[in-house]
């Protein structure tokens, strides 16, 4: 046994040969780095699927009337696109992939607190995905939208049960990851790493994990009640039996609004990691970023009502929710100032991760400011349920989480795979993706203000111009995604080898271990003496 240990001492986790070989060595591995990559590969497959569904919808909208699909198919498309993108990609997204891979590395631990539970989370995740997808084959594609609003979700003729139950299972995976990360950060920081010496990505994961733990059960019980409504007719959300469908909306958004912060907070953490490294400068206002992350997580619980301004609520409740919505924008804005100030007078190193990070700030600001338009009562009524909303949340969820995911991928890629991607192709992919993204979503703001509703396969002829631009943008963006993915996938196998520990000159712990890391991350346990990001 000790022999195995010595021979494996300097073997990278990618090549390590344990009890199981080949594929089994991956899907049964409790190594946090392998679990992280398992999530990454799973997400790659389903992100591509859902992106193609998105492209098909944009192609349908390229001209008024039926272009390539009818209304029922279109309803199914935006539902499945939404379910996959929300529950399978962006909610687990950054924590499951980069949190698993880098959290233990960044706090100097050998693994997460519960490695087996961690692997179980991935398995639960896969079971959840399969359950959701089985709805395609049992009783037709779901057509309720990803929100499963009552009473349609238990009246629709198609079989919505697998989708509801699958989303419920995916919630378990999310909770288990959250519990695991909180305990890891409380119990496993290396000597010298006090809370306020912890890098910012772990800090945002900490805030996220609390939301995962405290908000996900709410969606769990809500989905379960909808399942029971459909199967047994308990009547809780059914107006015909005395139930209240608005109550469903409340419960749904009590989870789903905090879930937005599950999506964006780790992204903010990634950006806070990348900017100091490529500006060669200490992060501006470390504590402000930490505290604003916690503030976002906290205030984020109390703003759910702004999704329901037109659903029927008392005037007083409307004012309260609108006020709180404005309040939650403040900590996000604090972060933007911190990032910009970090770059100020830095010696900028223009590399692919930096491009993604800066474009993140740009799209995040557009998404955030249009969020205020939606958060104020008068304008909300005007643009409610229009393409304005669609554009807003794609700027935040795709622009925010998506761009930071790409930034993280390009930043940590050499550490994860021990190889470097082709930088020219990476930058080309970014330019095409970024311009495609703006061309796709910016016209939607305009269309929304004109009054084009969301979730329709058809529209009035006056909206044609904007939709043509938007659909062409979608094609460009997909081309960009393709370039980025092909480059990364190719480079993970054939890219230029990286053996140095710290190719970007980062100051956080993950850059002090081997590239790629060995099984237990460290030969000797690291000790921390100074703040992260101390560039002298």
């Amino acid at each position: 046994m000790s022999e195995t240990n010595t021979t494996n001492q300097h073997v990278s986790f990618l090549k390590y040969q344990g009890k199981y070989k080949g594929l089994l060595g991956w899907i049964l591995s409790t190594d946090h780095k392998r679990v992280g990559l398992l999530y990454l590969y799973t997400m790659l497959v389903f992100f591509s699927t859902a992106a193609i569904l998105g492209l098909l919808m944009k192609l349908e909208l390229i001209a008024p009337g039926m272009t390539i699909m009818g209304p029922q198919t279109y309803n199914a498309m935006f539902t499945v696109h939404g379910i996959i993108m929300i529950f399978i990609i962006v909610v687990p997204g950054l924590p499951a992939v980069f949190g698993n891979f880098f959290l233990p590395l960044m706090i100097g631990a050998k693994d997460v607190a519960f490695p087996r539970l961690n692997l179980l989370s991935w398995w639960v995740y896969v079971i959840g995905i399969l359950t959701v997808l089985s709805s395609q084959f049992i009783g037709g594609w779901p057509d309720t939208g990803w929100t499963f609003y009552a009473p349609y979700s238990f009246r629709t003729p198609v079989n919505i049960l697998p989708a509801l139950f699958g989303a419920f299972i995916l919630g378990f995976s999310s909770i288990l990851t959250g519990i695991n990360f909180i305990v890891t950060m409380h119990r496993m920081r290396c000597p010298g790493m006090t809370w306020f010496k912890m890098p910012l990505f772990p800090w945002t994961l900490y805030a996220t994990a609390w939301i995962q733990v405290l908000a996900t059960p709410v969606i769990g019980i809500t989905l379960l009640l909808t399942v029971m409504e459909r199967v047994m007719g308990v009547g809780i959300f059914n107006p015909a039996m005395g139930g209240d469908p608005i109550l469903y909306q409340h419960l749904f958004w009590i989870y789903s609004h905090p879930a937005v912060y599950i999506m964006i907070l780790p992204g903010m953490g990634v950006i806070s990691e990348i900017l100091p490294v490529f500006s060669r400068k200490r992060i501006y206002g470390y504590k402000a970023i930490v505290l604003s992350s916690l503030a976002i997580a906290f205030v984020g619980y109390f703003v759910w009502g702004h999704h329901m301004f037109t659903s029927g609520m008392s005037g007083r409740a409307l004012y309260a929710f609108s006020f709180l919505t404005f309040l939650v924008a403040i900590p996000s804005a604090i972060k933007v100032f911190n990032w910009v100030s970090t770059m100020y007078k830095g010696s900028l190193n223009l590399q692919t991760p930096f491009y993604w990070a800066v474009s993140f700030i740009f799209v995040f600001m557009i998404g955030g400011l249009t969020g205020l338009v939606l958060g104020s009562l008068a304008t909300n009524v005007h643009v409610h349920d229009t393409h304005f909303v669609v554009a807003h949340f794609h700027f935040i969820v795709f622009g925010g989480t998506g761009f930071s995911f790409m930034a993280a991928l390009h930043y940590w890629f050499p550490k994860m795979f021990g190889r470097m991607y082709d930088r020219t192709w990476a930058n080309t992919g970014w330019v095409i993706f970024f311009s495609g993204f703006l061309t796709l979503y910016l016209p939607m703001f305009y269309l929304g203000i004109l009054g084009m509703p969301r979730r329709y396969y058809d529209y009035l002829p006056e909206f044609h111009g904007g939709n043509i631009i938007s659909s062409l943008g979608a094609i460009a963006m997909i081309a960009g995604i393709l370039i980025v993915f092909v480059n990364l996938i190719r480079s993970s196998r054939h890219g230029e080898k990286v053996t140095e520990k710290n190719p970007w000159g980062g100051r956080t712990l993950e850059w002090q271990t081997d590239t790629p890391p060995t099984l237990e991350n460290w030969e000797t346990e690291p000790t921390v003496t100074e703040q992260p990001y101390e560039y002298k």
Partner: protein
Amino acid sequence: MEKITEHTAHVHRDDEGDKLGMWLFIFTELLLFGMLFLIYAVYRYKNPVAFQLGGEELDVFLGTLNTVILLISSATVAMSITAMQKGEKTKALILLGTTLFIAVVFLINKWFEWGAKIDYGLYPNSENLLELGHGTTLFFGLYYVMSGIHALHILIGIGLFVFVYRQIMVNKINKTDYVWLENVGLYWHLVDLIWIFLFPLFYLIH
């Protein structure tokens, strides 16, 4: 030298961490039931009379019996943990077995209670229930959902008790390593606590 038994990183033990994880899990359970209590509050506020009449339909004797035995079971599982800490394996097993037995009795009582209601035609979506109006439908809808999800937790608890019982038998849980037993105990107290709230809300408030 650390032992590598499977394809895993290091094997590490941290009882405090394990208990912290369990507490976080308990938070998620509280949130889950919390939402059900919220729904109950909303509908009770909207249908006070129907909820009062519904409560009078329930069997207070069976409810009280289940409350008492569940409280006893919480005590026995706590005593079982103490016995394990002292290394008294046999005593721990007997006390754990008692808890397991009570959990099963609780479900048997529940079976008869539900059975009687269903015989009267009081179950979700039944014709009888729908005739009684919206408030009563909601009351019994919530009654079945909430006590049903609680019963599911009892069932999971039984599974956990069987598991830790076996672990004690084979000395995997012992005087120096009993965090599994402690965590199952914590879970059981949670199940008990939720019942403490369910019982008055459904059976006692008139």
